[in-house]
């Protein structure tokens, strides 16, 4: 299969984390967790093969926690945390990490904001001193705001405004969510980003940045005892915020109408179809439905042997590419996505009809037992491969624990996936309700309006 450069990017972002490494005390990947007195949750993932450590601080606050009208403030604040604190000059944290041979960065999503450094393991203490400092002590100037706002606007230009596929995806999400913040892009709508100010940033910071709203994940050549001692010393003295708001968000009503998004842009080179269904996420203590959806996604669109690829690319040649995406790690209801690039000479309408016909056939035909067995074998193998990348395991704990899941949920996940039956999968397929879906067509302007 030729790697499909552009649409693959879209689906890569949707790829499910299929499995988590098991805790296996004798080799790398051993996981230990504890909670500090101030409520900070700590996870340690050990790998002693190389003297390297990754230090990550995850906040249970993302773009879906922003106040209305201030879209993008969670991500804007993430940028501003690299400015000055009481003790550090603007840029000094990153410069210090680099001067110690490490690298650092941060990222924001709907449900979390995370900061990390990757560095020689004997520098962990220095990382903690600096990360603990900026949890409470940032000092922002009006110049910081003015300059960094330009930077995030250029970031939006680069990621979204310059990219019709990204603009299209934004419109589909906005149409999918009727009453939930997942319909607003993480980076923010341009007109609201332009108005973000110091007060917006500080208000978000003061509300959400406190130890009882964080998960510290340290992976690599460290022991749990070391991490505990350092975390108690540097993060321990920071008091919990008793007024941390409960994470209650507006919920989606039952969706009763299928929606269509037609996005036209002269920069579109390859028209395609994108379908999104509102579906459940992984819920703590009840991950079975999400597990079935995860395997359904593999069966329908997980590569050369998947059902849609067989139907749309081999049995008939109506598609050049097709794929599905589902990630159950989400605080609230998430989406199951299908994309299909029609072959040359096949219209979007014909492509969509073929896609719907294939989905209907799947409902009739059911799950191929051999395919299910191969998928489960790969999930089990991925637990072995995952131990080669403990930073990946760290990421999975960080994202799960900031998305409403517990350590136990994360550790139970491989077994829950393994227990999924063909019946579970067909039951999950009924959740792909047409009335809860958005079908998008990305296309070129029609003849005559190409200007």
């Amino acid at each position, binding site marked *: *299969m*030729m*790697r499909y*450069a*552009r649409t693959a990017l879209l689906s890569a972002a949707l790829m499910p984390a299929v499995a988590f490494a098991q805790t296996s005390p004798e*080799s790398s990947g051993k996981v230990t967790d504890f909670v500090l007195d101030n409520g900070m949750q700590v996870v340690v993932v050990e790998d002693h*093969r*190389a*003297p*390297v450590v990754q230090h990550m601080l995850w906040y249970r606050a993302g773009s879906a926690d922003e106040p209305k009208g201030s879209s993008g403030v969670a991500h804007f604040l993430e940028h501003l945390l*690299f400015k000055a604190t009481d*003790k550090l000059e603007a*840029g*000094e944290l*990153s410069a*210090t990490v*680099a*001067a*110690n041979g*490490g690298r650092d960065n941060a990222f924001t999503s709907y449900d979390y904001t995370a900061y990390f450094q990757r*560095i*020689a393991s*004997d*520098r962990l203490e*220095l990382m903690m*001193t*600096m990360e603990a*400092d900026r949890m409470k002590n940032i000092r922002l100037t009006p110049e910081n705001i003015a*300059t960094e706002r*330009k*930077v*995030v606007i*250029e*970031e939006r*230009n*680069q990621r979204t*405004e*310059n990219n019709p596929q990204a603009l299209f995806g934004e419109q589909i999400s906005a149409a999918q969510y009727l009453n939930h913040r997942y319909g607003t892009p993480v980076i923010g709508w341009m007109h609201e980003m332009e108005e973000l100010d110091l007060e917006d940033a500080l208000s978000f910071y003061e509300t959400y940045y406190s130890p009882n709203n964080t998960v510290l994940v340290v992976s690599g050549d460290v022991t749990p005892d070391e991490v505990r001692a350092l975390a108690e010393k540097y993060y321990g003295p920071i008091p919990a915020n008793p007024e941390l708001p409960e994470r209650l968000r507006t919920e989606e009503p039952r969706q009763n109408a299928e929606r269509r998004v037609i996005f036209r842009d*002269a*920069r*579109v*080179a*390859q028209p395609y179809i994108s379908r999104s269904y509102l579906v459940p996420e992984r819920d703590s203590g009840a991950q079975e439905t999400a597990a079935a959806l995860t395997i359904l996604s593999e069966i329908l669109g997980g*590569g*050369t*042997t998947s059902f849609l690829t*067989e139907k749309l*690319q*081999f049995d008939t*040649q109506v598609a050049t*590419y097709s794929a599905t995406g589902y990630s159950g790690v989400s605080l609230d209801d998430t989406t199951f996505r299908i994309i299909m690039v029609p072959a*040359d000479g096949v219209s979007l309408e014909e492509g969509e009809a073929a896609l719907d016909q294939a989905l209907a056939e799947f409902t009739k035909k059911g799950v191929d037992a051999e395919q299910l067995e*191969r998928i489960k074998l790969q999930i089990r*193998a*991925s637990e*072995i*491969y995952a131990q*080669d*990348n403990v*930073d990946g395991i760290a990421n999975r704990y960080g994202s799960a624990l900031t998305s409403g899941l517990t350590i136990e949920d994360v550790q139970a996940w491989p077994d829950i996936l393994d227990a999924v039956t063909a019946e579970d999968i067909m039951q999950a397929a009924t959740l792909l309700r047409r009335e809860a879906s958005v079908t998008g067509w990305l296309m070129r302007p029609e003849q005559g309006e190409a200007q």
Partner: protein
Amino acid sequence: MIRFATALFVGAAAALPAYAEVDIQTVTSPGGIDAWLVEEHSLPFVAIEIAFTGGTSLDVDGKRGAVNLMTGLLEEGSGNLDARGFARAKEALASSFGFSAGPDQLTISARFLTENFDESVALLRDAMQKPRFDDGDIERVRAQVLSNLAFDAKDPNDIASKTFATMAYGEHPYGTVEAGTPESLAALTRDDLLEAHRNVLVRDRVLVGAVGDITPEQLGALLDAVMGDLPQSGAMMPPKIEPQIKGGTTVVEFDTPQSVALFGQRGIAVDDDDYFAAVLLNQILGGGSFESRLMQEVREKRGLTYGVYSYLSSRNLANAYMGSVSSANDRIGEAIEVIREQWRLAAQDGVTEKELQDAKTYLTGAYPLRFDGNSTIAGILVGMQLIGLDADYIKTRNERVESVTLEDVKRVAGELMEPDALHFVVVGKPEGVVSE
């Protein structure tokens, strides 16, 4: 207190710890194929990287795109398995094989469980030695490549790369798109793919890195199994080329809100005595960290971009010193001016002692952090061989970085950087920027 602590740590940075040993063995198979091996038996799997130098630059005249299309078809059926049969067999073993073609090498990245060793090797052998190139699969993958070409034709980054490459390398393989043109791609036949396979997958151009749960004896047997029947030598390597880059600006009109700029001048070879001085110079100028001069001047002080970088593009057949930036159409002009000014300043004055020290600490400290997983290390082993390094290079690399002096960097900045020859290709609707 924190400033003091920081200073203390920076002061101690000269004594960075001795990192994990990456113990490289050189292995020669009974059939005479060489490979580098790092045994790592703690996890029950093997990662192998196999690279054939030459890659898409070995396309025959008039057959542009053949090597790329052939590479895409290696996992689309071989031996007695068709495309879907091959994929099912791979899944049933939980093995992964990646095939990719670039201008300097065709790369195969394989990963498989120890318990499925023999079956995985057999599958990899068939993919490498007995690809079927069935007609239906050729058409299917050809359509995917054509679709990718259509995407690239409307992508400002790809338009910039293509424009710059055409200007700098003309008819040389580095100057044309390796996937071909829609016309050249449409004309490729099954015989062309077989010829591309014969020309590229050959024993005297192969480099191998293996890491994981495998012994030298097992690796030797694997090498002979997967490559023993390949031809000894292949197509002639195209000549080296000096990029033709003159100072100035080329604007490519494209209706999009943010302009993308790619800039460059001539570069430096990896085997040049001054290469490490150039690496340090570039780290300080635009090497990707927040601390670089370009990031500080263009992003941190002026907010003109989300990212600005420069990099030494030192390849098998040509060397260039390149960079990129993107800014809104009404701000790209200022970003370009700032970059030109930084180029002039570095050429004229070199760098400061503090900048050099910081760059050395970063590069020497960051180096061992790269060796963080079997597949990654296998890739590094091949990368080292590709540029002609010895297996003991890892132990001496940081000393080479440390031995560069401030005078070296100043001299190399003066010799290498040519502010008047720096060319910008700008794709977008840049305001106040014109071709010149």
